[in-house]
C-alpha cells in the first residue's frame, strides 16, 4: 500500500504582467502538505515556462502579507504572485 500524502487546498492569484502573461488571475489548487511557496511557483513554471524568467523580479504574499519563498503553505491560504509594484 502506498503512503497517503495529505493535501491542502489553497487559492493562488496572479497580478499585473504575470496575470497577463499566463492568462490566469485566480485558481484553487490542491497541493501536498509541506509545499513551499518556491515549490508552488515551480509547479506553475512547469505549466507556464514563460514564468521562469520573472522569478528574480517578483515577490510572493501569503494571506495578504509579503512572504519568504521558503514559507510552507497551509490549508486555506491565499497565495499571490506579485510583480514589482507601480502604484502612485
Amino acid at each position: 500500500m502506498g503512503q497517503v500524502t495529505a493535501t491542502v487546498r489553497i487559492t493562488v492569484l496572479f497580478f499585473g504582467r504575470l496575470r497577463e502573461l499566463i492568462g490566469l488571475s485566480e485558481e484553487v489548487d490542491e497541493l501536498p502538505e509541506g509545499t513551499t511557496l518556491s515549490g508552488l511557483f515551480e509547479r506553475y513554471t512547469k505549466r507556464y515556462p514563460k514564468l521562469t524568467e520573472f522569478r528574480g523580479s517578483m515577490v510572493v504574499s501569503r494571506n495578504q502579507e509579503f512572504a519568504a519563498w521558503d514559507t510552507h503553505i497551509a490549508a486555506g491560504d491565499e497565495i499571490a504572485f506579485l510583480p514589482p509594484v507601480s502604484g502612485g
Partner: protein
Amino acid sequence: MDSRQEDKIALVRETIDDEALTRHVRAGQDGATVAFDGFVRNQSQGRATSYLEYEAYETMAIAKMKEIAERIHERFAIHRVAMVHRLGRLEIGETSVFIAVSAPHRGAAFDACRFAIDTLKKTVPIWKKEYFADGAVWADGELPPTPPSAKTAS
C-alpha cells in the same frame, strides 16, 4: 480620542474628490494640512501617453495602505490621514492617488505626507499599465521588501 478611526483609506474607480478629502482631515485643533496629488503625466520617457490602467490586489492594497497610516500616526505628530488610490482607466491629468494629512504644525504634516507616498509606491500592490499610440507596457515599478527566510521572519 484615537484619531485613527477618523482616517479615510480607500480604493475607488471614479474621480477622486480631493477637496472633500482635504476638508475631511482638517479640524479645529489643526494648524496645517499637507496634500499630495499624484496625477497622470502626458508622457513617459519621451513617449506620448494615451492613458493609464491601474489594477490592484485590492484586499492586500487596503491592508497595506492602513499599515502606512498606522506608521505615520506612530512616527509623526499628526491628526488625520486621507489616502485614496484610483483604479481602472485614467486619462491624462486625472488624479491617481491623493493623500492629505492634517497636524497641529506643518513639519509633521509635510514629513508624514512624504513618507506616506514614498512608502505607498514601494509596498502597496497596485500596478500601472501605460498605453501609447503604438502599444502598451507595464510600468517598471519597485520590488517590495520581503523577509529573506521564513525561518528568520517574525
